Each structure stands twice: as C-alpha cells, then as structure tokens.
C-alpha cells in the first residue's frame, strides 16, 4: 500500500526527511501548538453552530421553551441562538465550548507571543514569521469581535454600538466608513449577515491559510533553540518529529480539547437569555467586551471627554483611545524586529540561539512595561465591576487607573531591568536557590573561597 503510493508520488524520501526533522525539547515551544489546537476545537464546534444559526435580523415572535421570552419580538438570529441553547441537543455545551475556546485561543496566542518576544525569537532570520504572527493575532481578534456580535443579544448589540461610534469618530472618513461597514445608520438590519460572512467564511479562510504559511516558514527555517551544551547557531538539538514530537503533539491536542470541553460543560459563559434580545433603546450593564478587546474599552473609559479642534478639524474624543492607540500599538509591535535591530546595531547578524529574558534588559523592560499598560487598561475596562466588588466609587476607580496606567508600567520597567541585571550578574536561575559559596579552611587557620567544580 505504502509502496503503491511511493511509486506514484515518490513521497518516501520526502517523508523520511520530514519524519526525521528535529524539534527542540523545551515546553515553551509547545505554547503555539496550544493555540493551534484551540483553533481546531473552534473550527469543529463552529461548524456545528453554523448548522443551526440563522444570520437574519428580521423580527419574529419567540415561542421556544424559555418562559420569560415567550411572545416577545426577537430577531431570527437571537431566536436561533435561543433554540441552539435550549432545544438543540448538545447545543448549549457546543456554544459554551466554542466561546471558552475563543477566549483561551487568544490567550494562548498572547502567551506564545510573549515567549517569542522575551526570548528574541523574532530576530533575523525569523522576521517574516513575526509579521505573519501579528497578522494572525489581528485575525483572531477580528474573529472574536465578529463572533461576539452574532447572537444579537443586548450585550453584543451594546458592543456593536460602541464599535460604530468609534468608527464614526475617525476624522474625514468616519461617517462614510461607518455607513459602508454597517450599511447605514446604526442599528441596521444588514450588519448581522455581514458579520456572519466575515466570521464563518472570510476570516477563517485567512486565518487557516495564515497558520499554514506560519508553520511552513517555521519548517523551512528550522527551530531556534535555547543555548546549552552542544547547541550552536548552526545546529538544532532535540528529538525527531516521529515518533517523539508527533506523540507529544497528539497528546497535547487531546488534552487541550479536554480542558476546553470541561470548561464548556461546567462553567456558564455568555448567558444570552438573561441579557435578552437587542433593543436599540436599551443598554445593558455591566457591559464589557471579551477580555482581549478589554484594553480598548478601558482606554475609552479612561480617556477624558475632550474634543480637540485642530486647524478647523474636530477630532472626537473616541478617536484617540479607540483608533489612534491601537493603531500605534500594533504598528510598533509589527515593526519591533526592525526597530530592535536598529537599536542594537545588529546589521546582518543571524540568531538561531535564543536569549534568556535577562540577556537583554532593555527589551525585557520594554516588554514588561507594554504588558502592564495592557493589563492596566484591561482592568480599567472592568472599572464598574471592580468598583462593585471592592465597594469603592467608580469615579475613584477611574481616576486611580488614569494614574496607574502610566505609573505601574514605568515602575515595572525599572523593576524588570533591575531583576535582569542582578540575575545576569549572579548567573542565578530566577526560581533556583542561591548556590552559596564554598569555603576551605587553610592550615594557617584562615578561610579561602573554593571555585565550584563545573
């Protein structure tokens, strides 16, 4: 059978090198795989949901089994999500797995990105995969945003209204762009079906294609690796693809699916029936986006309500936190490999051995500061919830976060830099114990330090 295939495709020699490809042995190389396997779960559950979802904003009368909604006017989209949750067998658990998988998917991408960043894995010759990776992150965010809005419940409608307002705030083109995207003034009947096309067709096609290229480039360029005995810039030390890596990855895929299924089965997420159908005259509270958009919501909440007029052009206040901030953030992130190469006077040096975070205190410091800005803005997005839980006035919370968003990252930068320097000086493992100093007593009665045997 295999011989029959080999005779026709000549695949044996190709497969032999492929199966012998070496993968470095370190757990942090598996983080990207977790994201990949979340995507697998997302596609499988997503296909199931698509079988029952109706992308239609037409108002119909609800007559399903959820008593409080009976006889109410809801959109066909919301009705189908309710049917999916209450009548379709395994519908609710599929919906919940899909939603949890989406939250964990983006989280896994972020953790993978942090590993790449703090170890300098993006340096020449791997800038292409950094760029593709940022593209994949943006696609994942777009998938999340479009998916969040599909159920057409009150919370997702509130989110869409904010997106509409942010688009409107772009000088010159805002109103035209908003009408182009939404098909008219909010709320429009078209938006649900448009989001649907993006969420189940265009964006997944781009995402899956992008993942394919991401992996192909990785395959061609070979893995980077941590420095260690026998590891150089010109080799890869590790285990072969078959059987070691294949078994590890298969196990990881099954376990990832297990964790997501467990969450979907045991923990309630996005109970749309309590939010009710989207009604344009009503707003739900507390209203937050899913966590990965929280930083933008937080920026909108923290930014003071000022409207700047520059040379006769009015810049509405959502523009700066809602458009300019993410624009600058993603531009800097995209260009980081090139910025760093310029800063470090790298020239055309290639890097196949990874840094430890301490090896480059400047990069680590900047990364920690950026991460803390993100965390502070995300916390600010939950200002009303935090205010409720800790029983402080929501205005106090907002003002505190306005200061924290600048101070905490600055302090974080200094602390990270200092820790890097000390670790570098002491050559300590951040989690290891201080090895101490070995002393020997001399015949004269004094003490002298003994070089540790290495």
């Amino acid at each position, binding site marked *: 059978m295999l011989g029959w295939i080999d005779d026709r495709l000549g695949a044996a020699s190709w497969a032999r090198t492929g199966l012998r490809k070496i993968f470095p042995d370190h757990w942090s190389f598996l983080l990207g795989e*977790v994201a990949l396997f979340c995507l697998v779960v997302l596609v499988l559950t997503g296909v199931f949901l698509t079988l029952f979802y109706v992308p239609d904003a037409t108002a119909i009368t609800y007559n399903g089994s959820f008593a409080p909604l009976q006889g109410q006017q809801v959109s066909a989209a919301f009705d189908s999500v309710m049917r999916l949750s209450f009548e379709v067998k395994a519908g609710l658990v599929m919906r919940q797995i899909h939603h949890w998988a989406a939250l964990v998917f983006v989280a896994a991408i972020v953790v993978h990105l942090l590993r790449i960043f703090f170890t300098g894995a993006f340096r020449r010759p791997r800038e292409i995969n950094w760029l593709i990776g940022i593209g994949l992150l943006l696609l994942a965010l777009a998938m999340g945003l479009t998916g969040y809005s599909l159920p057409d419940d009150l919370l997702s409608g509130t989110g869409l209204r904010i997106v509409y307002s942010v688009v409107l705030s772009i000088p010159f083109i805002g109103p035209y762009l908003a009408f182009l995207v939404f098909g008219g003034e909010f709320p429009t009947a078209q938006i649900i079906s448009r989001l649907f096309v993006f969420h189940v067709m265009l964006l997944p096609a781009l995402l899956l294609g992008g993942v394919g290229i991401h992996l192909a480039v990785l395959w061609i360029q070979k893995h980077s690796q941590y420095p260690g005995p026998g590891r150089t810039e010109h080799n890869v030390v590790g285990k072969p693809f078959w059987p070691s890596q294949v078994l590890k990855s298969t*196990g990881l895929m099954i376990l990832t699916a297990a*964790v997501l299924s467990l969450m979907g089965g045991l923990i*309630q997420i996005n109970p749309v029936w309590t939010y009710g159908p989207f009604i344009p005259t009503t707003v739900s509270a507390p*209203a937050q986006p899913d966590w990965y958009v929280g930083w933008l919501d937080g920026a909108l909440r923290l930014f003071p309500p000022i409207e700047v007029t520059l040379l006769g052009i009015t810049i509405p206040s959502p523009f700066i936190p809602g458009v300019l901030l993410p624009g600058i953030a993603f531009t800097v992130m995209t260009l980081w490999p090139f910025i760093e190469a310029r800063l470090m006077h790298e020239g055309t040096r290639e890097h196949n051995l990874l840094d430890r975070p301490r090896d480059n205190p400047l990069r680590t410091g900047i990364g920690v500061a950026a991460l803390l800005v993100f965390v502070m803005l995300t916390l600010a997005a939950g200002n009303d*919830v935090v205010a409720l*839980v800790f029983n402080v006035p929501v205005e106090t919370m907002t003002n505190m976060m306005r200061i924290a968003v600048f101070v905490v990252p600055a302090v974080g930068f200094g602390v990270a830099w200092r820790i890097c320097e000390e670790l570098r000086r002491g050559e300590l493992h951040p989690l290891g114990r201080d090895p101490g100093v070995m002393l020997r007593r001399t015949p004269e009665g004094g003490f002298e330090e003994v070089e540790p045997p290495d």
Partner: protein
Amino acid sequence: MRVLWAFVASLLVVAGLFALSAERAPARTRSQPAGSGSTTNQVSAGRTLYLTSCASCHAANGQGTAYGPSLAGVGAAAADFQLSTGRMPFAENAGHQAKRKPPAFTPDQIRALVAYVASLGAGPAVPTISTAPSLLPRGQQLFIANCAPCHGATANGGAVGGGALAPPLSMATAVQVGEAMLTAPGQMPAFPLSGEDLAAVATYVEYLRTAPNPGGFSIGGIGPVPEGFVAWLVGVSLLLLIVVLVGHDWDPRRT
C-alpha cells in the same frame, strides 16, 4: 514580580465574585404586608417607637432635620420598604448609602411604625403584589429596559457612580420590589408603573432568583469580566501545567 501581583489581584477579584454569587439566599416572604388596615392603637404605638428610634434624625413630628429628610407624605410604602429591608434605622458606619441588613424591629413593630408614618401625610400605600407566571415575558421586558441598566441583567447589582451601588436583588421580596419602584429609595428614581406591571417586574425578579440557570457554574452572571478571569485562571493555567508536563523529558535513561 508585577505579573505575580496582577495574578494575586485577579485571584482576589474572582474570590470576590464567587462571594457575590454565594450571597444569593432564598427570600423570606411576609404573609401580610404592613400598613393595611391600621388602627389608632397602631399609630400611637408607632409614635412611641418613632420617638425613641427615629426622631433624632427625622424630628419629633417627622418634619425632618439636617440628618434625615421629612417623612410627611412619603407614605406607608416608603416606610415599609426602609424598615423591612433593615435600611432604617441607618447604621452608623454605612457611608452615605443605607444598606440592606436584618430588620431592627419585629413585624408588629414595623406595622406600627408604618401606620404612624402613613398618618403624617398622604403617600403611596404598601402595594399588593400578586406574582403570576403569565406575567414573566412582560416582566423581563420591563426589567431589562428599566432595572437591568443599574442592577444588572441578572439582578446581581452594579456600580452607578458617585460611590452609589445598585444593590443585588437576591433578597428582595415581591412587595419590596414594588415598594422600591413606587417610592424611589436612595439614588433610585421612581418607576410609577401600574399594579400589574409592578407584579410583572416582581415576578421576573423572583424568577431570576429561583429559576434553574442552565450552563453550569454561574460565575457571577455579569458577563465578560469574570469570564475573562476564568479563561486565564482556569483555562490558561491548566493548559500551561499540561504544556510543562507534556514538554518534560520523561526518558528514564536521562536523569
């Protein structure tokens, strides 16, 4: 180090959210609403109680002082709401918002006090609220449009600015829900709805408390904030543990 800090802080928030959802307890229903069919006896008994427990802030004849508003014309509904939810008498360290606590008076004493306050001037009487399952859809519509913006879609409460909190409705009885909507306690505006609409809202509040809520453990029922924390603290933490275990070199020949 800072990351660790954020981790600890988020743990605290999640713990708080769980405490929030654990606060739900079955409501006590009072068989007979106070303030109906009061007698002169009740009024005078109420006045005696009033003079010892309320007059220091609301003044001897209910005309109010700098520390408490006038009670003339607030009606039986307002008095019954404030007393039966334990908001009055005001706790010393309650801040500027009266909070729900166990009532300080017995049901009989409350009836007497309510009768006395009602005698100070004409105001809304204690409403008769008859909840009915057929009112659920109307109740949900009214609740989402009028109550959810502050109290939250699941009636778990919310922050409404100026340090004020819209309290969770997990303890509110049907009568108290109606009284609050008629008498505008604290920062809450009045919602002078018809008797049937009041009953519809109360029916839905009762439903939120008692109806089965499918989908597994409710993590606060307040949307993406607790969901995001759980995604990181449960999902990502578990997967990181798995990644470290899977990535470990289990080969016994290498130690």
